């Protein structure tokens, strides 16, 4: 049983864990992706904006879930992605897999996130804090009188 979601509302790890409840699920792996400040921009990234082509994105989520169920012995799956403006630290994506044992649970979650990043029509763009203007050198001249 797979849960797919594309939403502009905050994502909850606790809710994802509940969605992965399944009889016989001895191993549950949840991957959580969060917005981080990009060191390449000097930590100026304050938010990411995610956009999606909704219909094809949800169709791809469902196809991805079917492929995971074909490849791995899964008992439950979660594929959730956020859209809209997310501040640094907010959760952008949750994928999860419930299986009888840990090895397929890890493998399934890895498969889901790696495939999602390259096959689901979702894009992100950075929103950065404006760069500080360089300070003007201090005028060291002294002894000048006005006028």
């Amino acid at each position, binding site marked *: 049983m797979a849960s797919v979601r594309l939403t502009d509302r905050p994502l909850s790890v606790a809710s994802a864990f509940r969605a992965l409840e399944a009889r016989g699920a001895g191993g549950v792996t949840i991957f959580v992706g969060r917005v981080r400040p990009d060191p390449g921009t000097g930590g100026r990234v304050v938010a990411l904006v995610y956009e999606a082509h909704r*219909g*094809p994105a949800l169709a791809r989520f469902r196809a991805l879930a079917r492929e995971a169920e074909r490849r791995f012995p899964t008992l439950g799956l979660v594929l959730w*992605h956020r859209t809209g403006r997310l501040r640094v630290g907010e959760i952008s994506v949750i994928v999860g897999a419930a299986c009888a044992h840990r090895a397929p649970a890890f493998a399934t979650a890895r498969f889901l996130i790696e495939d999602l*990043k390259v*096959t689901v*029509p979702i*894009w*992100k763009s950075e929103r950065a804090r404006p760069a500080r203007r360089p300070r003007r050198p201090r005028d060291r001249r002294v002894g000048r009188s006005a006028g």
Partner: protein
Amino acid sequence: MARPVTVLLFAGARVAVGRAELRWSVPAGGLAAGELARQIAAEYPRLAPILRSSRLVHNGEYVRGPSETVRPGDEFAIHPPYGGG
């Protein structure tokens, strides 16, 4: 008058065009997807380099080839490389 094609633009394609959506007139009998993309790039030159790395989507499905016919009223989308997660 035939209904236009709705062209959806995402990410870099949207930035290059300056809009998220266009209405594009096509002949009543339709237009090849490749020709439609060429016409749009000719109108918006900044889109051309982005188109080279983009996937074309017709009514929610990937375009199978440049000769696929896009008809009035259809939806046509330009998908630059994805970046979710």
